[in-house]
């Protein structure tokens, strides 16, 4: 007996297939059996921009794999923004907190329409038991983040504020920028304070450096949008 697949059902089926393929792309380094176990247990989330995924101090419900879109993570202390991290496709959120059994150390908010795969803690544990290799995959994510943090630390100690902000502009443009006729546009609607916490410099310095770069004609500013006009110069700095 054949089942008639209606158009909407087919569209739904097709969407599910595409999502599954995407997740499988980010998990490509996993063993096939472990990959399938992850895909069977993952909850797919599609969130509009400016949606809170979790808040600093929340209990950790699992790990989130970003499939598409952009997410900002913010750590604040007494209302003062201390650290900002941007996550894009392939980033894993909440893994550090999960393993150290702490509460969420940062809040996460979507910046664009974002799709995530959520692996809840009990499901993850079930997968660990059957497929310990998933742990090695997660460790690779943790190590990569550790490496980034250490590099940032050395830069914070030895590079001047202007150079660090310029590096960050180029890095963010590479990950999240959109090519326009004017140059690569960064449209993440980050405030001056968020740029400051992303780089680890004072908000006043952000304004000063951005205006200095604009005066030189290397970037263009309009509201919270930033265009990289002279990428070559920015990359050499």
């Amino acid at each position, binding site marked *: 007996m054949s089942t008639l697949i209606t158009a909407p059902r087919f569209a739904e089926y097709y969407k599910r297939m595409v999502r599954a393929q995407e997740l499988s792309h980010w998990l490509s380094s996993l063993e096939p059996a472990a990959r399938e176990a992850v895909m069977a247990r993952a909850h797919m989330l599609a969130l509009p921009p400016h949606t809170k995924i979790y808040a600093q101090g929340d209990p950790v419900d699992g790990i989130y794999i970003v499939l598409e879109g952009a997410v900002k993570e913010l*750590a604040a202390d007494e209302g003062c923004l201390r650290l900002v991290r941007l996550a894009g496709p392939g980033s894993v959120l909440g893994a*550090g*907190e999960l*393993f*150290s059994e702490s509460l969420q150390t940062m809040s996460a908010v979507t910046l664009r329409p974002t799709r995530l795969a959520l692996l809840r803690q009990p499901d993850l544990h079930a997968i660990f038991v059957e497929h310990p290799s998933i742990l090695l995959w997660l*460790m*690779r994510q943790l190590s990569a983040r*550790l490496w980034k943090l250490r590099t940032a630390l050395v830069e914070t*100690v030895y590079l001047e504020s202007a150079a660090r902000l310029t590096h960050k502009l180029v890095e963010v443009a590479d990950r999240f920028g959109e090519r326009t006729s004017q140059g690569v546009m960064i449209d993440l609607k980050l405030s001056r304070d968020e740029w400051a916490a992303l780089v680890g410099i004072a908000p006043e310095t952000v304004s000063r450096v951005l205006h200095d770069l604009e005066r030189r004609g290397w970037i263009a500013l309009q509201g919270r949008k930033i265009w990289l006009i002279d990428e070559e110069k920015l990359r050499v700095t």
Partner: protein
Amino acid sequence: MAHKRLVIQAKRPKSPPICGVEGCAGCSWIFTGLDEKSQQELRNLMRSVEYGADEAIFHEGTPAFGFFIICSGKAKLIKQGPAGKRQILKIVGPGELLGEENLFDGGTHTASARTIEPTRARFIKREDFLDFLKRHPTVALQLAEKVARELQSFQAKLIETAYESCRARLARLLLALATQYGTAEGEIQAHISRMDLAEMAGISTETAIRTLGELEERGLIALKRRKIVILDAAALEELAAPLPVETIENLL
């Protein structure tokens, strides 16, 4: 601003000695919970290595063939910065791991390691250990926890470096060193040069020397050649505590 207490967590109790060498005070806590047979299996993967004082163990950017467990002595993990500058990421002593974070990410050392004192260590090959981890998820989970805690420490250290004064950074470093290597009398038992201290705190050597002098003058510490004794930990904590940063696993 209300004074916040600085929390420096005590280190986890070590696992029983794995190597079976007499006089060993125990191994990293990530090996806790292994039965005798698994311990033997791990022991069979180990190779002994020895280094003199101030000798390179591995270099940043070179292939990582495995990781080290320090048996005796101390070593520092160093990251190269722009224009030949360097930052000491941490100091590891007996029972601790060196180079374990590169087991998973393509096998290149992301920092250099150099001994401070004559050091004996055990080396385990990368493939052998990954295979061992797959068969011993408890150790894999404990290692994941260790890396995750270290990650949070570096996150805290990054915030600290971006926003805190040199004095606060140095005070925090001294307290962390005393927790890890200090005697009951507050003497830090590690031969760490002023330059090393500066590179750990992320400040210039001149600032480190000046700030240490200032702390000694205020009666917070005593300096005897390379030895540093903490005299007033509470006052140091006050200096170090404007940020509620917990220094956890291996902040040093």
